[in-house]
């Protein structure tokens, strides 16, 4: 039986080869591009006009399989082959016309109408599909969907291919610019994420371009034929999560279709509520390797899981690799480069062309702390370009907020201060005691009560912190305190003066502020003082 089947197959293939040889002799001189596909959509023959149109030698493209997808594959032959695939209906309904086209290596695109004719003799014959391509490019308009020769889905498919390529062009690895160590580390992490294909979570502050990096990884993964389905975890609920996951399921290829990988992008993962976390975990258990998982988060999901703030199994499933986005303030060396990049992106969108920022403006931008991260920088560049009348953006064209910040910095003394733990604690103690003393009108017994300290301890702290002050009238002196040279009660010390007002503690307590926003609750001391 199997020997008979093998002979049958061999015989069928031989007939197919002889058919192709016969056809190729007839079609070689055709001025229109012509190609032949077999029933497995493998390109078996193309004529010289076809090679001229595609720019590919027949030897390169023959043998390639034409799959019907609108992916972003980097391999030129596969990309062109995908663009030549006829609408799948042709194998069911017979001859029809459809759009074919592809983007060339130089970025230009071509789109032509093709007529597809199935060629088959008896049932035993291997079927072939002849594609006769129009001699010139044609324009595809979305309002011609109702054209009688074309199935509407074919036009949508053709348009989807173009749109996806155009969108994909925005997300390229070379857009992750910067020479700083932080930028280099980011590029290395992204490259690793691209090469491995495992689930990736991009962690970083809001506005740092987390979604951009995630989409860049999606585009750069060579197997990403499929699309990307983003889910905003901050607003999603059970029903909308289900709808999105069903859309993901529908966009996966059916059995018999070419393999494709679709990315699921979870935005602001830390905002996903616990119910949806469980729901997502259950659904992810059923998806295969054809779904690539990407997520963005403000904090590491694994770290959140360790603190009990996130489902551990879900965090482990989503954060196999964590890419950490640096804050813009930590890569100030890159700000000049990023500013120029954003400006040139503006150039690529608009009519008006700008050459750059003047050095003074760039210096100001490089010094700014950028609390809003890259999003803020992008907004500042857009606003500056809109304000600018010439071709170079000057300091005067920068938004008022940036200029005001620069002027404020210019007038302020630079404060170079290093954090020292003990100093910081002492400063805080000083602030609290000063505020309590101000509140209690320098009554230390009352101040101690306000602070929840014993009076003796407060006095010790006052002395340690240099807030030393003589007791006010009515402030009783207790025996535990030992007078020492220089202390308030030392008659020869620095506070020894006849004028009691001069010996008040030198505390600039914000009395007005403490009245408007009380730091301490009133203590009912029953009219006693100490």
């Amino acid at each position, binding site marked *: 039986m199997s020997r008979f089947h093998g002979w049958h197959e061999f015989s069928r293939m031989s007939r197919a080869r002889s058919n192709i040889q016969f056809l190729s002799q007839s079609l070689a001189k055709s001025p229109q591009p012509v190609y032949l596909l077999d029933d497995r959509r493998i390109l078996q023959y193309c004529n010289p006009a076809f090679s001229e149109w595609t720019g590919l030698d027949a030897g390169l493209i023959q043998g390639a399989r034409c799959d019907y997808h609108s992916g972003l594959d980097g391999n030129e032959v596969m990309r062109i082959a995908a663009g030549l695939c006829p609408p799948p209906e042709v194998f069911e309904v017979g001859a029809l016309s459809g759009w074919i086209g592809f983007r060339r290596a130089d970025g230009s695109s071509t789109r032509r109408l093709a007529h597809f004719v199935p060629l088959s003799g008896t049932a035993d014959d291997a079927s072939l599909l002849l594609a006769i391509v129009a001699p010139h490019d044609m324009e595809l308009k*979305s*309002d011609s*969907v*109702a054209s009688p020769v074309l199935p*509407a*889905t074919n036009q*949508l*498919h053709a*348009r*989807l291919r173009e*749109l*996806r390529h155009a*969108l994909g062009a925005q997300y390229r690895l070379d857009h992750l610019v910067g020479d700083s160590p932080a930028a280099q580390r980011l590029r290395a992490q992204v490259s690793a994420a691209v090469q491995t294909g495992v689930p990736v979570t991009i962690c970083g502050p809001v*506005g740092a371009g987390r979604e951009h990096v995630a989409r860049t990884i999606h585009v750069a993964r060579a197997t990403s034929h*499929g*699309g*990307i*389905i*983003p889910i*905003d975890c*901050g*607003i*999603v*609920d059970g*029903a*909308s999560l289900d*709808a*999105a996951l069903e*859309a993901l399921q*529908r*966009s996966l290829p059916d059995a018999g279709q070419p393999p494709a990988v*679709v990315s699921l992008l979870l935005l602001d993962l830390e905002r996903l509520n616990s119910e949806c976390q469980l729901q997502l975990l259950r659904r992810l258990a059923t998806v295969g390797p054809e779904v690539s998982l990407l997520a963005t988060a403000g904090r590491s999901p694994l770290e959140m899981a360790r603190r009990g703030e996130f489902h551990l199994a879900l965090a482990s499933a989503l954060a196999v690799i964590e890419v950490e986005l640096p804050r813009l303030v930590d890569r100030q060396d890159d700000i000049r480069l990023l500013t120029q990049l954003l400006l040139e992106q503006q150039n690529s969108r608009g009519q008006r062309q700008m050459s750059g920022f003047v050095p003074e403006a760039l210096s100001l931008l490089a010094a700014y702390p950028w609390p809003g991260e890259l*999003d803020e920088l992008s907004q500042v560049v*857009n606003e500056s370009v809109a304000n600018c009348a010439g071709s170079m953006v000057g300091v005067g064209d920068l938004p008022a907020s940036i200029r005001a910040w620069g002027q404020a910095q210019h007038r302020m003394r630079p404060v170079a201060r290093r954090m020292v733990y003990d100093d910081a604690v002492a400063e805080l103690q000083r602030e609290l005691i000063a505020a309590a003393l101000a509140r209690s009108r320098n009554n230390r017994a009352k101040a101690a009560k306000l602070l929840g300290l014993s009076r003796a301890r407060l006095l010790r702290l006052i002395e340690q912190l240099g807030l030393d002050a003589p007791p006010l009238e009515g402030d009783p002196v207790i025996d535990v305190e030992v007078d020492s040279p220089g202390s308030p009660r030392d008659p020869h010390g620095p506070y020894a003066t006849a004028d009691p007002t001069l010996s008040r503690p030198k505390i600039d307590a914000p009395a007005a502020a403490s009245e408007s926003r009380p730091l301490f609750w009133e203590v009912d001391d029953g009219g006693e003082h100490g």
Partner: protein
Amino acid sequence: MVESRARLLIWERHGQWSRAWHGTSGAIAWHVHQVRGAVEVEPLLESARASFLAMECDAINWESRCDAALKWTRDYGQVRFAILACPDLIPMEPWFREIGAVDVAWDLRDLGRLTRLACRHLARYRPADLNPVQRCLERWGWLPEFRPDYERTEHGS
């Protein structure tokens, strides 16, 4: 006066979605603004940059509307949009989601799901510097001409 940074904008021709949204109970009904063209959308987004935009798309206009949505999500990073599509566009759903649509509704039965998404998005951007009473007032939603002037209310009380 505290102006909300977010609105629910419905870009449609015939108004069936706007009427349905107005008919829903709850605060969302008060945030609905029906618009009929991109020129109307732009200034509204400029004044409320975190709005939720629901766009009606059909076989003729889907491409231009998607281009506009892409531009607005680029220019106003906090804007979210959903597509109100006709069934002809089912093959395009992956694309709608790919460019950032938070949901795609095919008919009015999907209104509840969209409403919940819109409510949660608008809640993220409600004015934060309000006291509890003002927050309650804000939750009710107000037409612009009847919106309470919190500053005056506070001084008056």
